[in-house]
């Protein structure tokens, strides 16, 4: 399986990774080569095989609906890049545009 420059641009956009044209172009080859090694999997018949999910687990443990939360030894002020009046700031978004924004 080889991938195109458009594929690279598409997945870079999904992953919010900015790529220069040169880097995008070289990734076409790098990723195609790696994916080429994956093609061997298609030779295996996996009909009826369950995908590995929750390997070794015996159900999902749950917790009581009570506190206290795991404490923070330092508050957001100590590590947030941009904070005002306790709110995290990011470049302006238009309202109502959620997932789809930008």
């Amino acid at each position, binding site marked *: 399986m080889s991938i195109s420059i458009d594929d690279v641009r598409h997945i870079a956009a*999904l992953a*919010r990774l900015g790529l220069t044209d040169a880097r995008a172009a070289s990734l076409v080859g790098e990723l195609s080569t790696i994916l080429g090694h994956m093609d061997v999997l298609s030779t295996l018949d996996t009909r009826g095989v369950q*995908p590995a*999910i*929750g390997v070794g*687990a*015996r*159900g*999902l*443990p*749950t*917790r*009581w*609906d*009570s*506190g*206290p*939360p*795991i*404490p*923070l030894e330092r508050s*957001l002020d100590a590590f947030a890049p*941009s904070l*005002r*009046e*306790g*709110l*995290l*700031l*990011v*470049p*302006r*978004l*238009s*309202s*109502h*545009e*959620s*997932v*789809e*924004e930008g």
Partner: protein
Amino acid sequence: MSNAELDAISADWEMVVGLEVHVQLKTRTKAFCSCSIEFGAPPNRNTCPVCLALPGALPVLNAHAVELATRTSLALNCTVQPVSVFARKNYFYPDLPKGYQISQFDKPLATGGWLEIGARADGSPIRIGVTRVHMEEDAGKSIHDRYTGVSAIDLNRSGTPLVEIVSEPDMRSSEQAGAYLRVLKQILEYIDVSDVSMEEGSLRVDANVSARRRGETTLGTKAEVKNMNSFFGVERALEVEFIRQVGVLKAGGTVQQQTMLWDATRNEVRPSRAKEGSHDYRYFPEPDLPPLVLATDWIEKMRHDMPELPAQRRTRFAKDYGLNEYGVDVLTANPRLAEYYEAVARASGDPKASANWVMGEVLAQLKHTGDTIETFRVRPADVAELLGLMRDGIVTQSAAKKIFIQMIATGDRPAQIAERDGLVKVDDDAQLVAWIDEVLAEMPAEAQRFRDGEKRLQGVLVGAVMKKSKGRADPKQLNQLLAGRFTV
């Protein structure tokens, strides 16, 4: 938009609606961490390593959220799956700290339910299918209008447990969609899983709507309509979008599969700026959470412990308390009111008098004071005691209303108030006759006309005596005595 326009196209065209309803569950703490979900805390106060998505933090599921989601599923007649799987829904947004939402995808908590939203003309019930109920976590809040040039993020809501309830595309009108939402909301109130307030955001509705010519059986291309903040808004948005789609189809065009945003102030829908194909959520099973395994015994226990649902309660109230349809409707509309009524009825032993008092005086006072039944000061036992005082002839109905006002104002018990304020019924003939004589003396013209046979004046005279007695006079005895005064 006009109703005439809707009526005109509805002759030839049919609206097809499916609804996706998100409901915040009423837990104390978040879905995957122990942070409080109380409303109104300072920004980002209710956060921890998990809901801030700090490097290395891991989710642990809240057992109570599972209980509430399961109760919801069972109340909607769904099959609760013995194994369900959490999945990651991947997308970037600043109020989604992990860059993915923990949700459920191809193996949801529950599937295949339904609810009834009324009956057809022939009496058969209208059932709307519930495709699935799944658990997920809420995002934080983005505040766009607080500061210039930047948006502000508050993660207090991040990780609040939600259920998403997805219906089949079974609704055929905006009225049916509205009915579905009202029935659903009532059920959720009855089983006490959520505050279900659209205004406060604890219930949110997205609608999928398409249009087709009447008689067609295949579904048209649907649009998703978002951003409604009331049931009324949902109904209007569906109508506007339906009219828009029919317009497109009639002109020979095709409906685009897209997201439309409802603008309540302009009464219109407009397409979201989303680029087509831009959502690719890359769902995959959440590796930090093994599959959720629910034992059959546990599911059956949840079914057994299910609070009474609205339909059951309506039937029971009609049967056990002999209430008419109107009484049943009023008293079961809200589960807390129904519980209040039932407590009064049980304590007083008189369901009819209880129904009259709760529907009359209690609801009137709630309307007057702006309280809800949950915050109403008067306990059902005290209302029952008041009804008992009336039944036993200790106070008159007129005095009882005065006592009730005092009960609300002071929180005191009715007998105490009756005693203190001198509202105990007076049935002493001598006292009653003395009041009658005073009134006859004060109103000689009316007295004379009554004496001459104008019987309708009896009410006026009795009223005057009642007033003089401050409502304490026993009306029955008073009537007899008044009549007797003139037969001698």
